[in-house]
């Protein structure tokens, strides 16, 4: 399973990649929305799930979601956010089963379980 993880903090990406690697997942990481989109754009069917922070330095997670949705309508998105009040907006983005919300701070295991649940 190929996973794309996006966060502006390198340390977080590093630890998520390491952990998911132990679970036999193939992880690619990006620190900005633009970098993530170009990874996706190379092959829109390559990733089975995208894990992204809501806040990103350039375009935010939601904008990234909207851009990717234009090319791939089923790719599951897992949003990470420190704000519980963002959940409602996130859930409203797509049909149940394609969008998940993870409240920071979450455990690596919780991330893995969520990926298992949502990934195609």
């Amino acid at each position, binding site marked *: 399973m190929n996973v794309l993880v996006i966060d*502006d*903090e390198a*340390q*977080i990406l590093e*630890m*998520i990649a*390491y*952990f998911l690697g*132990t679970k036999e997942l193939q992880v690619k990481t990006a620190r*900005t929305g633009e970098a993530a989109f170009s990874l996706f754009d190379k092959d829109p069917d390559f990733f089975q799930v995208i894990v992204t922070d809501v*806040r*990103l*330095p*350039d375009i935010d997670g939601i904008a990234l979601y909207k851009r990717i949705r234009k090319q791939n309508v089923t790719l599951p998105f897992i949003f*990470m956010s*420190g*704000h519980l009040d963002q959940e409602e907006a996130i859930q409203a983005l797509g049909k149940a089963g394609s969008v998940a919300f993870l409240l*920071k*701070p*979450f*455990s*690596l*295991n919780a991330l893995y379980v969520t990926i298992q649940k949502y990934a195609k």
Partner: protein
Amino acid sequence: MISYVSFKSSLTSEILQHLDSVASIQKSRIEAIIEQNLERLLLISSRTQLRITLNRFHHEADQDALQKMTIILRDAQKSIPSFEEISIIDPKGIVLVSTDEGFIGKNFVSRSFFIKGQIENKADYFFLDDEKNLKTYFSGPLQLNGVFLGVLLVSSNVDNLISAIQDYSGLGKTGETVLGKVDEAGEVIFLAPLRFNPGAALQKLPLTAAVFTPMLQALNRKERLIDDAIDYRGAPVLAAIKYSDSLKWGLVVKLDQSEAYAPIDTLRNELFGLMFIFLVAVIFIASYFAKHIVSPISKITDRARAITDQFLSEKTIDIEQNEVKSLEHSFEQMTQGLLKANQKLKDTQAQLIQSEKLASLGELSTGVAHELNQPLQIIKMCVDLGQIHLEREDLDKAGSHLQQINTQVDRAAEIIQHLKIFGRDASLQKREKVSPNQIVHSSLIMLRGQLEHQGILLELALSGDLPLFEVNPLEIEQVLVNLITNARDALESSQEKKIIIRTARKYQYIIFEVEDSGSGILTAVREKVFDPFFTTKPVGKGTGLGLSICYGILKDHQGTISVRSEYGKGAVFTLSLPIDSEEEA
């Protein structure tokens, strides 16, 4: 007025001197005229031919003698035009011979000119003829060798006398020469016509003027100058009075005071005129004052009271005083009210600063949550991975995760610490000497992450050569946070997202600049950015107090805050704060 009085007195004496000299001349002229008439009388009465003939007639009573005397008298009359009739009265008082036949036979036995005429030559037996013309009789004795023969009687007009009297040269329009005498009945009479009463000849002096008239004094043989005389008309005059011993006449030369003082009265009138104008001016000025000064003062007073009553919750006390006192009082009340209001305003401003901080703290909370969640997230994952490494007995990696946790706790603690400082009431903080650049760094602790997240390029152009300056660092930091937050918000929809923060020294001032590459500020907006409650941000996003609070803080520091911006070309906010002079020494 003093010059008027002294001028009047010198004018008076000058005119009196003038009248005196006129009076002296008139007296001489009149005495000369009368003397001339007596001489003419004497010339006739002393004719030997006449006396011999008269003497012959007394003895012989022949018609030839009468005829001869008539011819002599007629010759005499022809040679002296003013002599109208010449007659000879016999010792019994009967007219014996006359140039006018109608006179012959008239009995003058009881007439004074006949009685006195037997003894002396005299020329003042004045009378009015049928046509009211003033005439006089001259009479004198006719004698031959000491024997009384009769009285020579001449009736004459007094044209020369009257023309002398009526010569008003040097006497202006009201001056005249008045002749008077005491008549046989003891009454004071005017001899000649008067300038203002042509029919006054031989009339008695009016009783009303009798006491004061100069003529009475003249007839009391006094020669003097009078500056407060009243004449026969009751008019005040200046007068010179003379008395003729030979004639026993009084002579008064006088001039009305109204004419005498006309020039000086003009002066007086001008003076009064000036005083009147002055008075009018005073009244005008007073009313001007009343209108333009007192009335505005009253208005100001009323306004001050109104302001005090309406805005300053001070009850004004109405005290009846003049306008200035009243204004002073109202002003004092308003001042007191303003002082209290000002204190209240200061307190309110301090509260506003605090609540603004809390508001911006709330606004920052989104960012702060993110900032705190990042270290927490890392800690949480470090724990997860640590456990995995412990299970695998990879102690080195587990230890590395513990170390990371420690670092992240410090990171979180720093943010929290800063929040606590920022939330404190900065107005309670004392001023301290700090580095300007340190304040910039402090203000970025909570903002740097946000800026990065929003893709805003932050450029610091901080001068490395700045002295410490004495400020309330938390307040200045709050200002910078405010400016940077505004810059951030301004870049929300911009293509190029860049904030430049500069520090510099300019003379005795530290300069901070926060520049953004946003859309800039419209001129109309720029004029209001420091107004309280003015905001261009969406409802719920800004309180509109930010920049006005900044303005207040800068003012407290004797500094300034200004903005320059061109719409479409970003904006630069500049703070200018004085360096403590002590630091310079």
